């Protein structure tokens, strides 16, 4: 009995993950190789053409998603790092208050948060409408329905996920190590570049992973903020599945997206060094 305990404990969760995570992936792989339509049904034909068709038709959106996701991730890193740095080293006994304030947006639904952000950017909204009223902006000035609006929305929505892991890594840096560097006549810049920055890299790695993947695959920001000319791959997959009911094409697209993201993560991990990856994964 005692030897069976761990298996009995793990069984329901394990079954759930097997049936609803592993089997669906296999189902999606199988559907992506079928041909047919929603009315007559689909049949397995092992047609790779779903992949080539999907890629040739939607490569623009795929590349755009990677570009927007990448730009947003870079923006999050540049905007978020100084915040994480300041809270970790200078936050004092108020550290948890600052972290709580950074997490405040998560008490509002993701969809609603994005729409409210769109509110702020609206052509005649409280920000630009007022500025236009004062004559500070030309009447045809707009931000909504541009690439900038979508990238800013992605940056806004995932910024805390970039700040938190960097904060965790910086928080573990012993301030005495930095003092030691300065005692040994390193300038503030050199102490940061040679001591603090390398020690924070596992946090940067984790932050980039936690933000790039969801931001690239996100359909909501493009739909709410992007107008019609900034469609991302997430929107295409959604409409192909749900409106056009072209399950094989949509499955092929989903697989392609996942493959691209996996390759991206792998290349990124190689560039940054395996040690950092293992360290980040261990946390």
């Amino acid at each position: 009995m005692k030897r069976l305990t761990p298996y009995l404990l793990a069984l329901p969760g394990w079954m759930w993950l097997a049936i609803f995570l592993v089997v669906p992936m296999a189902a999606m792989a199988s559907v992506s190789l079928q041909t047919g339509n929603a009315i007559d049904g689909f049949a397995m034909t092992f047609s790779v053409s779903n992949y080539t068709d999907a890629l040739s038709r939607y490569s623009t959106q795929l590349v755009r998603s990677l570009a927007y996701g990448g730009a947003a991730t870079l923006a999050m890193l540049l905007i978020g790092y100084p915040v994480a740095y300041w809270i970790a080293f200078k936050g004092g006994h108020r550290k948890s208050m600052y972290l709580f304030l950074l997490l405040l947006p998560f008490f509002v639904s993701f969809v609603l948060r994005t729409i409210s952000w769109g509110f702020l950017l609206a052509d005649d909204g409280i920000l630009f409408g007022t500025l236009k009223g004062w004559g500070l902006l030309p009447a045809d000035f707009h931000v909504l329905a541009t690439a900038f609006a979508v990238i800013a929305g992605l940056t806004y929505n995932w910024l805390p996920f970039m700040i938190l892991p960097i904060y965790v890594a910086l928080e573990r840096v012993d301030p005495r190590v930095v003092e030691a560097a300065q005692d040994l006549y390193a300038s503030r810049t050199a102490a940061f570049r040679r001591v603090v920055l390398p020690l924070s890299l596992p946090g940067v790695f984790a932050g980039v992973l936690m933000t790039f993947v969801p931001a690239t695959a996100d359909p909501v920001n493009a739909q709410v903020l992007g107008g019609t000319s900034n469609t991302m791959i997430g929107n295409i997959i959604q409409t192909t599945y749900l409106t056009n009911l072209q399950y094989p094409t949509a499955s092929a697209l989903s697989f392609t997206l996942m493959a691209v993201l996996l390759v991206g993560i792998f290349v990124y991990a190689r560039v940054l060094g395996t040690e950092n990856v293992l360290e980040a994964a261990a946390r």
Partner: protein
Amino acid sequence: MTRLSTRMRGKLGDRLLHAYTWLIIAWLSSPIAVMILFGFNDKKSKSNTRWQGFTLRWYQELFGISDLTTALLNSIYIAVASTVVTVVIGTMLGLALGRHRFKGRGVTNFLVFAAISTPELVMGASLLSLFVSANLPRDAATITIAHVLFSLSFVTVTVRARVVTLDPSLEEAARDLGATPWGTFRQVTLPAIMPGVAAGAMLAFALSIDDYVVTSFVNGSTITFPLWIIGSVKTGIPPQVNVMGTLIFGIGVLIAIANAVAARRRA
């Protein structure tokens, strides 16, 4: 350059960074302020983007749009159901992974990690592929299945983190004093891991009530709160949505603060 001037420059840099941190906090909070504010907007036109005066009308007519009310109730039911299921099987899985060495532990750990790192879009799409292949109709049940799937790993990880800090000699002592395995679990193990279980439950509830992407694939004709909001973007979001968002925000913040205060008392 003397040491003193370096230090003064450092002080200035710190002040700038301090102000910058508050600027970022203000940026992150500004859409919330807008959401709360426009729940009080006495709007006359169809769109709710221009301030037209203060009113409490939308609070009085909170449940005036029946589809929206249904959607919110659906979201709450699904969140409660999926949280209960997730907490039970996630706690069991967390206990197994944190306490025991067993065959297949590595594979299970990998599956837990894979469920966290799969993009929501791919998760939703693959679940729909399964349900379509199996000819399963999509409704509140399939939404609940999906929500349990993406919350499970988070509950497992939080419980596991708590379990590994637990001293095994406590349970041994209980057994030595004649407690049954179930008695040991209920009176020793469960109270000790309770903070982890509670945190996991709150996380599962929050993830479920907030989810749009996965739900949009497996909902069939059932509409949840986020789905309803996205569906009404084109025609204009009614102020009732702002009010509901404000109330959910308020309740969430209150629970978080109460939790933090309670944790401080205990410490």
